[in-house]
């Protein structure tokens, strides 16, 4: 809970940051002092160091956002046509634009706070979701008329094989983005039933580097999700994957 509280103070974008700075100190719009802002960050990080490494790293992320402010002359280029020619504005006009932007942003920040409060109070009420009782279920229209279990299995198998072909195409034909989710699904399927697998079963010798990387990422992601356990008995040894719930010492 403490982390959560701290996190709400974390800025996310240039406007968020500026709003914060405006509340703390005087900011010259024409020449936002990068040094000053950097000092501000360092001060924050100093304070955070003992608290939470994650928070500190989020502040570092913000440092790059600041560079973006400088680079984009305060605004992301693609957001507002009027702002593209910020250079042509007089300092007063630029300042006025920023003031307006900050006011609008502040308004939505306030609205977001109201949303948070509403969500909190709504979360305390649970809708009736038990649905129909057994005697009524038989009355429901038979949406599955003519559908067989075998039919469903064929559809699912086709989809999965379609997916494999897609994977092969992706590896071979073009620099298509490789979907981590697809690979996670593949690993999950591979483990299903078998209970355990070796990394080498998933990535044959000589496989392209991209496949090795994405497979490893998929495994790490599944590990994070608690879907599998990973064991490696020796350095550079074979990596064993064990499906969650399967005894690892079997």
């Amino acid at each position, binding site marked *: 809970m403490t982390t959560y509280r701290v996190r709400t103070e974390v800025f996310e974008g240039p406007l968020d940051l500026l709003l914060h700075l405006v509340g703390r100190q*005087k900011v010259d719009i024409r020449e936002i002092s990068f040094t000053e802002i950097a000092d501000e960050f360092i001060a924050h990080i100093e304070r955070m160091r003992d608290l939470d490494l994650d928070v500190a790293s989020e502040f570092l992320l913000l440092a790059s956002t600041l560079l973006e402010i400088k680079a984009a002359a305060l605004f992301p280029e693609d957001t507002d046509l009027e702002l593209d020619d910020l250079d042509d504005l007089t300092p007063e006009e630029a300042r006025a634009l920023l003031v307006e932007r900050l006011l609008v942003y502040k308004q*939505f920040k306030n609205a977001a*706070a109201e949303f948070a409060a*509403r969500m909190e109070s709504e979360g305390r009420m649970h809708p*009736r979701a038990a*649905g*129909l009782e057994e005697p009524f279920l038989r009355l429901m229209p038979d949406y599955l008329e003519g559908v067989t279990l075998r039919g469903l299995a064929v559809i699912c198998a086709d989809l999965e094989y379609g997916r494999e072909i897609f994977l092969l195409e992706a590896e071979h034909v073009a620099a298509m983005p490789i979907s981590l989710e697809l690979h996670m699904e593949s690993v999950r399927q591979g483990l299903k039933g078998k209970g355990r697998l070796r990394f080498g079963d998933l990535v044959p010798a000589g496989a392209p580097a991209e496949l090795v990387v994405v497979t490893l990422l998929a495994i790490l992601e599944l590990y994070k999700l608690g879907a599998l356990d990973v064991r490696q008995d020796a350095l550079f040894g074979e990596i064993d994957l064990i499906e969650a719930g399967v005894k690892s010492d079997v």
Partner: protein
Amino acid sequence: MSDPGSRGTLEALLFVSDEPLPASRVAKLLELPEADVTAELREIAEEYARDERGFQLREVAGGWRLYTHPAYHPVIERMVLTWDVRHLSQAALEALSVIAYHQPVTRQGVNAVRGVNSEAVISSLVEKGLVREVGRDGAQGTAVLYGTTRTFLEKFGLKDLSGLPPLEEFAPDAATEQSIRERLNALEGPEVDNDDDAIPTVD
């Protein structure tokens, strides 16, 4: 006892519904005027509140639905794993509020207000079923337009979008506005103070 418009009938129908039940649909089913059904539903809602029942009847997202009373949230939470909606991040809440008030709106529109790329945040809102694609912006070619969903109305206890509190309510107060203007102007020296009236407004 089974008088069509009776409290019992309505209770039974509400009881088996797992989504908000529109009064119009009940009226059609029972062949009764919608106004009568609505009046009876209101009465039931009041009765539950008066009798301090463990559940309540609320009008949300275009219909009526039974909910537990918030007083019993802690004990329900102990019994069942509940979806804690409080876990939306500040960024997600901001993007959601921009979409709620400006819908239909493109991602760029959300970015413009927030001053930061909102792509990931919008995707997460879509994944949570709070926001959906509602069309394409003809003028901008293929830019996706986003709007809120019925789930959004339900999760926020709104009957419809007109139930959103007016955006004006959230305008920064005079003091905040003054301080933003002053602080941004302050480094300029005294001559800028006179320019206050000349500041162009952007809307």
